[in-house]
């Protein structure tokens, strides 16, 4: 646990100093909203379409963060430094997933209101609580699977390509859960809570992949 906090602290500090990932993710998300405005030729959207635009944008913005997650470790010797320390290796997975989760939360804190402002027809207010629940569960899946995929992809030659082509299919069920869970919330006078079925599926997906990642992560670190 101490190791997790140590690595997490270092990652956040590194992001704070370099500002390499998070600003790019946020800008990308907002630009994508603008692109959807023109691509769909709609001033406002609602319901399932809105949920789809929001979650797909977040997914692709997350891919940017996922691609960069381990680059500093690989290029600046972070893997070696970590492996030389007498600490539990799984701590790196937990720390990186937590860092990615926090990045996604910051991204959404900015991108979701921006989405409400730029594209969403109905007011965001009544949907907010349900949306937070769905996005939080989705973020866990994005963070866990993203960390795993990133750790695989960073050691390959074509890492910018391998990351997305493995990550996107693996994340598809999570995307379905997020989009379908958020859909009913974004209708004018829609339901206040997300459909329980999708919350359950997202939670199941989170738990299974968290355990799975924990089981296989050590193998990605050995040299």
């Amino acid at each position, binding site marked *: 646990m101490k190791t997790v906090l140590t690595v997490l602290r*270092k990652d956040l*500090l*590194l992001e704070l100093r370099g500002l390499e990932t998070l600003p790019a993710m946020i800008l990308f998300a907002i630009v994508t909203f603008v692109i959807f405005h023109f691509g769909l030729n709609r001033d406002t959207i609602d319901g399932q379409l809105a949920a789809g635009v929001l979650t797909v944008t977040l997914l692709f913005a997350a891919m940017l963060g996922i691609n960069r997650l381990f680059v500093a470790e690989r290029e600046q010797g972070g893997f070696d430094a970590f492996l030389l320390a007498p600490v539990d290796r799984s701590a790196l997975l937990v720390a990186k997933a937590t860092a990615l989760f926090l990045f996604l939360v910051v991204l959404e804190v900015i991108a979701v209101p921006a989405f409400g402002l730029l594209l969403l027809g109905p007011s965001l207010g009544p949907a907010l609580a349900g949306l937070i629940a769905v996005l939080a569960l989705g973020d866990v899946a994005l963070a866990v699977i993203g960390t795993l995929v990133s750790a695989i992809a960073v050691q390959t030659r074509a890492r910018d390509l391998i990351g997305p082509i493995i990550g996107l299919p693996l994340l598809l069920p999570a995307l379905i859960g997020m989009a379908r869970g958020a859909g009913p919330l974004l209708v004018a006078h829609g339901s206040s809570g997300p459909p329980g079925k999708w919350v359950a599926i997202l939670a199941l997906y989170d738990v299974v992949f968290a355990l799975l990642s924990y089981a296989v992560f050590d193998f990605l670190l050995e040299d």
Partner: protein
Amino acid sequence: MLRDVSLDVPAGSTLAVLGRNGAGKSTLLRILATLLRPHAGEVRVFGEALPRRGFAVRGRLGLLAHDPLLYRDLSGRENLGYHARLHGVAFERVEEVLEAVGMGGRADEPVRTLSRGLVQRLAVCRAVLHGPALLLLDEPLANLDPAATELVSPLIGRGCGATRVLTSHDPQAALAEADLVLGLEDGRAAFVTSPDKVDAAAVKRLYA
């Protein structure tokens, strides 16, 4: 890429590894550091067989490789603080080693803005931070001027108290520090002997 290399290094002594670029010096150090797993053969560090017992060895060795293993966007103090936390070392130790290499004043600048010599000093700090009993030194004095060499000498020099495995681009300097010499040629041991028995011709052939 290593073959037929077998030798014992007694605790507290210094092994110099000689050989031209690509002979397998760095590979040997990475295997000893548990970062590479040997495909076959037996490697023991502190009597623990690698790679199976790697966890028993980690934390007791310090690696100083070509790569300083420091984050460029963090300052020297932050980098060392990170390593101190990972190794469970008190922060006073960070200040102690920073002072020892004369970096106390510049430890808050990002590593990417420092000259190579200063980065190498920080890398020395990182390698010895947790007081390792085995030091793996790959060209430890690279980029260091004579004054800096003087400064790091109590940390990684002959009197530092740790068992040392060191490589150097300068065979004469390495021989002067060694108790035992391993000559590597294309991943094979060309000779293993004490430094006074190494003849100039053999060294010359090694680097030819």
